[in-house]
């Protein structure tokens, strides 16, 4: 299916969100979770990073529109 004009930025946004979701899944699931779990601070820092990345992705795209 051919993308409608103006939908490419939406497509890119969806792809970036999917990538962030995949990254989050990788980081917060086994086996990587075992690496952080011995250090409680690391999990909180990574959690904060995922939220910050999400906020940045959403807000940045909005300004471009």
């Amino acid at each position, binding site marked *: 299916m051919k993308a409608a004009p103006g939908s490419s930025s939406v497509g890119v946004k969806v792809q970036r969100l999917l990538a962030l979701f995949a990254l989050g899944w990788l980081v917060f699931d086994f086996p990587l979770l075992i690496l952080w779990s011995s250090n409680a601070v690391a999990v909180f820092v990574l959690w904060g990073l995922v939220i910050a990345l*999400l906020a940045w992705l959403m807000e940045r795209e909005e300004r471009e529109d």
Partner: protein
Amino acid sequence: LTPTLVIAVSFAYLIALFVVAAWADRRAATGRSVIGNAWVYALSMGVYCTAWTYFGSIGRAATTGLWFLPIYLGPTLAMVLAWVLLRKMIRIARAYRITSIADFIASRYGKSRLLAGLVTLIALVGVVPYVALQLKAIASGYEVLTGAGHGGSTWWSDSTLYIALLLAGFTIAFGTRHLDSTERHEGMVAAIAVESIVKLVAFLAVGIFVTWGIFEGPGDLFTRVPCPR
């Protein structure tokens, strides 16, 4: 605390929530919606933290250390896809005037009645123990606050029964009077957002108390976190 005080405060809190809901509904009627705000909407999402969350997640934190975190990491990850998934679900629900998860899933598969029935059944079977947990959480909270023992030996002396009856009454009176997919429950969303602020403050208060009251700061707390296996 005396039972009278706990019950009076609970009712005052419920009344305050209804006042907020009524105010938001009035604002919506005059076209000045309060829930069109991203902060209010985000706070209303805190509804997923149920009464049981306070027992479940704090209990897990106390006994298994970091393993309480997935309760929050999962929804955080799910919200990463909210912009993609939730918007689509809302669009479909609006277009087909869908009001329940059973209708939603069935509509995706050719409006199959059998599937809708099956989803309803699964949702019912899944939700009953969960609702029971919520009621148990409220009853346990009440018992902790009043210092009362575990209900009584007979079923009618268990406070859980009266809490269930009370909540059922409120739900019938205020929750499910209308069934209209085009209607936005502005008052309900606003009340839930206010509730989320209360929950957030409560969680922070517990966190501050545990970190600096029971332990000696975050460093001490983190060194004593049991290492998950």
